[in-house]
């Protein structure tokens, strides 16, 4: 694994913080994270394509209430890292989407069990209110670390499988992968049309 892929994963884990934990400047959106991360790998058009496809594919899930959409940054990072390891984008993207879904599960679990840890902090904050900074900084650091480990794991696990598939899949199967890949923008645009439905004035 090259150093540029490690840098890509490190930047991705910082961008992931923007999803919910800090700022929310929408740097973690597919169309922004994709091109930004591709600056590291060098293939800018791959970044645009992955970014647009990620955003259109996840356009039907919004973070309303407790709903957690698949992680766009993870999808872009894993896809571009695999692409940087010579896996065609139409295969790499599949692994990116799987990683994004798994990342959302991990995040959901973290949110579920965080309350046990927070209850103790709440008691301490009520006694000494100035401690309010600590759980915030600890959470930020822990989440960045979790993202780093998870994205690294996804890339490490999926890269040999993706490379094996690239080499051993018959030509027809490559065509099938391309077909499902090229369908994404059209499915996404059709989703956008229906997502703008006017329910009430």
């Amino acid at each position, binding site marked *: 694994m090259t150093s540029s892929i490690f840098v890509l994963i490190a930047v991705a884990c910082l961008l992931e913080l923007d999803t919910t934990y800090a700022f929310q400047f929408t740097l973690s959106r597919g169309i922004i994270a994709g091109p930004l991360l591709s600056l590291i790998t060098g293939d800018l058009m791959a970044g645009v394509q992955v970014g647009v496809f990620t955003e259109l594919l996840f356009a039907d899930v919004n973070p309303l209430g407790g709903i957690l959409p698949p992680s766009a940054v993870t999808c872009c990072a894993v896809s571009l890292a695999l692409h940087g390891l010579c896996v065609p984008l139409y295969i790499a993207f599949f692994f990116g989407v799987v990683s994004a879904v798994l990342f959302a599960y991990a995040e959901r679990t973290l949110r579920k069990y965080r309350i046990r840890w927070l209850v103790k902090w709440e008691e301490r904050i009520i006694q000494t209110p100035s401690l309010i900074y600590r759980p*915030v900084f600890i959470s930020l650091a822990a989440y960045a670390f979790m993202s780093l480990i998870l994205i690294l794991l996804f890339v490490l696990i999926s890269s040999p499988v993706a490379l094996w598939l690239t080499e051993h*899949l018959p030509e027809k*199967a490559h065509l099938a992968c391309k077909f499902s890949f090229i369908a994404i923008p059209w*499915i*996404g645009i*059709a989703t956008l*049309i229906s997502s703008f*439905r006017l329910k009430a004035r």
Partner: protein
Amino acid sequence: MRFFMRLNLFWRSFFLQTNWNYIKYQNVGLAFVMWPFLKHLYRRHKTELPQVMQRYLETFNTHPVMASFCFGALARQERKLVKKQNLEILEEHRNDWEGIKRSLSITTASIGDRLFWGSLKPLTLLAALFVWLALDVNFLEIEPAPQPKAYVFIGMLCAFVLFNAIALFVKWKGLQIGYMAKDGSCFGLTKFDWNQTIYYAKKMGIWLAIGMFFFATYYFLKDFNGVSDFQVKTRAIAVAVFVLISFITRKLRVPNTYLYLAAFVVFTVASCL
């Protein structure tokens, strides 16, 4: 509220969701945002701070951008609370504070979700797609031709700036409006006609999305027009099939992600057999 205090709350509001959890949602975030204001307000009654913080650590959940209206309104209510000496009146004001926190967070969450996640985010996506296709940044092909860096970043910046200009304006103004609002103005929320704004944003979104569909279809087919009639027809049929599938799965409430994953596995396995 002084400018630097407002700036401090504004800066801290970016960390509202850091400790999001399924029981009390953004409670730690709310306490973190309001801490400098409370510290300043209770500087002469420091012993009351633990009790005050306990109130702020109760359940709170709203939209991260619209939350600034809540911060402003809660700060104003807190100022009323600190002045009360009579226990009965204090209890009454505490109940008011609790009611305001609950009702305002629900209202702002509903507006924020519809405006920012439901309208502005997809609108800025469409804006970026239009800019990219207009600049010949073709993302519809399997292997797109390389384009200058500037072209790529113009589309990206377009979405980034459009979204953040509106979101940051609402966030900054919301703090001020929520704090300064007169009684009966629903804590400043009535200053904007949110429903009308969302209605027009969605209306514009529908037309832009339909426009994007036709523009992308034209873009997808234009290079093959006159070169290979068969390829144009095949591509046009493929687009029609994809869109039809998308409408059907949307009716069946199947998320696009699972549709793509299933299509990838099924097509690949079927082609290997």
